[in-house]
């Protein structure tokens, strides 16, 4: 059973989408993504001098007529795609509740997984969490969306997360290049997430980033006066006198932090998008993600 945001109309519209990659990967079998290898697709790639044994159906007779030389037409090979979905499952994803932040993040991941599976490609889900990192097997075929749902619903957020080491653990086990989509709140110091993203880049993956924030993180509803703020991951405490002035400053800092993340992504050729959890999932997937070039 698909979760509530996945209405019949929404699923139909997901069927029409295809992920866009900015790199060519060597697939495992014929598919719809171009490969650096020459193959038998309709897309022309190059010419090559005829050698005995070549299939004469690919001879370019026009060139032979003009130059009296035999040339063979070469075409691109089209292969399937391997997509890796990395989902942040640290303690901060349970704020204000897991239902209000982690679940929407899983819904985004499921929508992306459905698009991949509907195009007969392969998807693998990775939960970024310390110490118990988890990854699913590769799923292929539309019907495997139920396995994706089972995998994500059995996960619960908790614990602290250092992005780079956690991603490193997962990347060690990756054998096939493909597309990596990282879904996280990125409420970590910029050197930390930059190291993580650089690791992905070094693994020859085409990277997209979706930042997930809850409304309460954008506008904290703290009561005025003395508060002891507790970090959901490290449990560190911070005593503050909360006021409107601090709220304004918090907004500025969050905006600066997000701008920095976006800028880093642009420089590194990474798709970036922000999803606030009280947004409509269908609007985000069908309008925002195509707009940043994640879908064809």
């Amino acid at each position, binding site marked *: 059973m698909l979760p509530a945001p996945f209405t019949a109309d929404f699923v139909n519209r997901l069927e029409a989408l295809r992920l866009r990659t900015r790199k060519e990967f060597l697939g495992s079998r014929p598919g719809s993504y171009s490969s650096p290898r020459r193959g038998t697709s309709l897309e022309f790639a190059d010419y090559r001098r005829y050698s005995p044994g070549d299939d004469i159906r690919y001879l370019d007779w026009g060139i032979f007529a003009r130059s009296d030389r035999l040339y063979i037409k070469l075409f691109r090979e089209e292969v399937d795609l391997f997509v890796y979905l990395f989902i942040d499952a640290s303690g901060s994803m349970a704020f204000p509740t897991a239902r209000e932040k982690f679940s929407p993040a899983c819904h985004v991941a499921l929508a992306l997984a459905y698009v991949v599976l509907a195009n007969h490609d392969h998807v693998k889900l990775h939960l970024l969490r310390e110490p118990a990192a988890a990854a699913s097997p590769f799923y292929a075929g539309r019907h495997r969306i139920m396995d994706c749902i089972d995998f994500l619903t059995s996960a619960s957020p908790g614990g602290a997360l250092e992005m780079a080491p956690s991603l490193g653990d997962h990347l060690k086990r990756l054998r096939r290049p493909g597309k990596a989509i990282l879904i996280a*709140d990125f409420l970590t110091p910029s050197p930390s997430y930059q190291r993580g993203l650089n690791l992905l880049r070094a693994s020859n993956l085409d990277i997209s980033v979706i930042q997930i924030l809850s409304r309460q993180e954008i506008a904290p509803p703290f009561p*005025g006066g003395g*508060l002891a*703020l507790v970090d959901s991951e490290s449990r560190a405490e911070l005593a*503050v006198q909360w006021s409107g002035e*601090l709220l304004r400053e918090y907004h500025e800092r969050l905006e600066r932090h997000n701008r920095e993340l976006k800028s880093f992504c642009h420089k590194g050729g990474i798709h970036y998008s922000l999803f606030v959890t009280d947004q409509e999932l269908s609007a985000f997937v069908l309008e925002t993600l195509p707009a940043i070039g994640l879908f064809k």
Partner: protein
Amino acid sequence: MEFLNPAALYALFLLPLLLIPYLIRRKPRRVVFSSLLLLRDFSSRSSGRPWGRLYLPPIFFLQLLLLLLLILALAEPVFSVRPVKIAVILDNSASMQALEDKNGGQKSRFELAQEQARDLLRDFSPQAQVDIYLTTPRLEQSGKDALPPDKASAIIGALRPYDLGEPPDSYGDELSRLAKEKSYERIFLLTDHPVRGQDRIIRVLSVGRTKDNLAITSFQIARPSFTSTQMAARVEIASFSSKEEKIRLLLKGGGKILSARALTVGSRKSVAVSLEGFPAYPAYEAEIEVNDGLALDNHRFAIAPASGGLEILGISPRPEALYSLRSIAGVSLKVISPEAYEKSRGEDHPAEIFLFSAPAFLPKKHTLFVLPPKENPLVAVGKNLSKPVIASWREPHPLTRYVNFALFRPAYARSLKPLSFGEAVIEAPEGALAVALEHQGFRYLVLGFDPFPYLGKENLPMSIFTLNLLEWFYEGLAGSSAATGEPVRLGGRSDKGFVVTPKGEKFLLEGEQNIFSHTFFQGFYEAVRGEKKELLAVNLRDVRESDLSNPAPIQLREEPAVSGSRSSFFSVWPYILLLSILLLLLEWFYNPPATQP
């Protein structure tokens, strides 16, 4: 605008206390947040605030306003639309003479009640009409006309408490009736009793705190035997104190101290002291020297028995068992039949015993009824009982003193039920077996079993009970003392005369008057008629007044409003209360409980 409960306004002084939680809030509210990455240096900046720890958020001012409104609502503000009719009832019973510490000095509870009443009246407009009531000897208005507050204050200042116990009626019902009959807007009762329940009109203002107290609960002067010339005294002292008390008991007579004894009385215990071998005087006083709550009950007065011996008239169709009483020293007995009793009514026997019979009217003498027939003026006679088990008995009581009720097994009995008044002294599971009462200075005892014949040591429990009842009648006969508020019988019926009270007041006596009822104070009353002088002792006998540590609460019940009655007030407080609730809701919206993962 007036306040029906102005004392509540003193709570305004407590408002600054609201600051305390904001000043000493050392442990701020813990709120879990996803990441403190973007909040890191906020902490150091907020501690540099010039206000220091005191941060007064807007919610503080909302709370302040809310408290202010609630206090105002408690003070019950009203707009008067016509003169206010109120009643001030002062409890003037004996316990109101108990002393309370105030401002370094001591004041009686009654004085404190007077002060409170005057403070109360000061807040009412001069157009208000005030009726003043006293609770003893019965709840009645002091004066007839309604008074303006200033005059009522003056009259309240002149009132004095009596040495009387409170009437047994329930104050709550009595006050509700008064409010309904006289259409009072508000009744203020100033008393030393705690209150239970609440009433829209009746406001009870309690004065005084619980205190330790000791009291002489019984003082009897008698001859050791009916023929002795020396006297003996028996004093019972009860402690209503939370700790053991050391006291000194003094017996005074003829202006001298006749005997003194040091005693230790345990907490909530009573002791009985017998003093013997002192000469006869017309009057005696017992006193305990102790610093306790109420001084009044540390004294008791008694008159010596007039003569030795007890003369009894026995009336019975089967008098044989009665003759055994003649074996008791000092008892002289004359026995007649019930038919002959009607003819001998004029005979002057101080005590009568009706065995298996009863007169048509209650005799004006101390009387014992043994197994009376159904047609008797005091009790309803119930079913027959064979060897009844004694389930309970009144203690302490002169009739049950020294009796071992485990061995007290009459062979035959009938249960009794008082027709109008009287207290059950001995009870079986099926009903009362002995009912005692005092009426117009006479003592009556009805027995549902036959204590005769008197067998001495052969039936010790019954013999002790028989001696107790004879002694009880003998005490009454001697007229050793009467209870305050109780009418006393005077001898000599023809001459005019006067009575001087312990306070020195003089009351004239008409020629035919043989009952004097203004016995509101404890002490000796001297009745003078021609050449004849008579001394009467009157004592506070209501032990409830002495128990200052456990006063009986006043139960109030909210009476439904009388339909069609129009209040002279336009009450503002319900609107203030409503506004307070709205503010409370606003506060809830403004500051909802923080949700935490």
